[in-house]
């Protein structure tokens, strides 16, 4: 019986280059950054988008928690916990920044969606498409080897490492400020704080570097690289609006 020749893993640099090449091809030349197509929406359209966002609850702790639970390397696990503190609220330990779910509420509040309404929305059924997209996302973070789960952050947070990201997010936030003021938002600082947190000068830059560190240190076998690439592509598909 013929046997497959032993495959060798790509070097960390080669694998990251392959991920970026895959991202480039997937995006067909379009921007890899979030929020590229925002703007030009009315106050009520933004509020409606926020209502959709809150329906069925916030998933952040679930997938980040799954990653934390699965890590067997104590050093990496504690770095993941530090990330949980950034996203679950630096205020937990007396730091300055509230949790991402709280910042999402700030944004919604400024568009007239009250906390009481958000509470109700978070108790409702998730939209069917969201259910299966998030269900897969929890599964990949729960069921994959931990290097693959953490490497899946290279799609979102990892994009903040790319050239042009600082300029993109700086403009995105500046434009949002102008737009929100025009729309009559009372506290623009609160409305844009989550955007800032997701920018490469907020916590996300450290998280992006952490993702790359894990890829370099732990996604080091052909099997893990295959699985990480599959998760990477599926995550990009999940994030593509209206294409799955």
């Amino acid at each position, binding site marked *: 019986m013929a046997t497959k020749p032993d495959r060798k893993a790509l070097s960390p640099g080669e694998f990251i280059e392959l991920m970026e090449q895959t991202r480039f091809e997937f995006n067909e030349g379009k921007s890899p950054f979030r929020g590229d197509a925002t703007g030009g929406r009315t106050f009520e359209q933004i509020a409606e988008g926020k209502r959709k966002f809150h329906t069925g609850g916030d998933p952040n*702790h679930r997938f980040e928690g799954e990653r934390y639970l699965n890590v067997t390397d104590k050093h990496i696990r*504690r770095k993941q*916990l530090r990330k949980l503190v950034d996203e679950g609220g630096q205020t937990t*330990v007396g*730091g300055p920044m509230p*949790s991402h779910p709280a910042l999402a509420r700030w944004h919604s509040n400024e568009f007239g969606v009250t906390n009481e309404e958000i509470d109700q929305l978070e108790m409702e059924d998730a939209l069917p498409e969201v259910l299966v997209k998030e269900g897969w996302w929890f599964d990949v973070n729960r069921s994959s080897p931990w290097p693959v789960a953490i490497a899946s952050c290279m799609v979102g947070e990892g994009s903040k490492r790319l050239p042009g990201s600082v300029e993109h997010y700086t403009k995105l936030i500046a434009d949002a400020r102008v737009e929100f003021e025009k729309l009559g938002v009372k506290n623009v600082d609160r409305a844009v704080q989550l955007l800032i947190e997701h920018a490469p000068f907020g916590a996300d830059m450290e998280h992006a570097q952490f993702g790359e560190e894990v890829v370099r240190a732990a996604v080091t076998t052909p099997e893990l690289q295959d699985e990480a690439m599959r998760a990477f592509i599926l995550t990009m598909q999940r994030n593509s609006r209206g294409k799955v």
Partner: protein
Amino acid sequence: MGSQLPYGPEALAAPAKSSADFIAFLKAERQRKYPDGPAFLAAVAAGEASMDDIRLWVKDLYDYWDKGLVYATGAVYTKTNDEPIRTHMLRRMVDVEGEEIVNDLTDWDTPAYEELWLRFGEGIGLTREDVTGFQQFTRTYFSMRTLMTYSRYWDWTWLDGVATWYAADLQWREYYAAARDALRDTYGVAETALEFFRVLLEDVDSHIGWEEEGLAYWACTTERQLTAARAFRERLDIEDQLLVAVQEVRTGDRLPFQTPA
């Protein structure tokens, strides 16, 4: 839920207890099941355990502080969708993994429980290798793994998980405090070696309040109260089972199995 039959219509037809009555019921359950706490800790508190017994305890419980509690705490956090409670849980994860993790935000430098436990061991004459190289007693290992898997999966809901934290905190507040006092006053262990106990007990004091409030608010139906109370009792059992093997060695009843290398 473990392997029990589900509660049926008759059990669920009973009205839920008031918040205050439910918390009082949990405390009464603790007194009913373990009025004297784990026998090994009672022996330490009474000065009846030898230093070798105490060294064995340190070796056998290391994996609990290093792996079991870390995982179980994170597991309950991950399935908790109420943000105010989750925030408290995150704070607790930082306690367990070491406040030094957030040093950049806070200047805190307290290390992880497992590190403090190792320092306790060093303070009573053990090396780190003595502790980390020990093959845990099988009963202790089973107890730890039960805590981990029940916390992780469907056996306990997130609210059941809060009840289990409350159970452990009530036990630790009473029996670890008594053990710490005896270690210092009876066994002459230096205060510097007992930092684990100071940190644990301060942390417990900072968490019991929100645990009670959370249980009082969210355990608002008969079914939630029934399952939370069961989980509370199961955690009391686990905390007791964690210390059965060292007690058996101490009393010479038998030499327990250890996990294979």
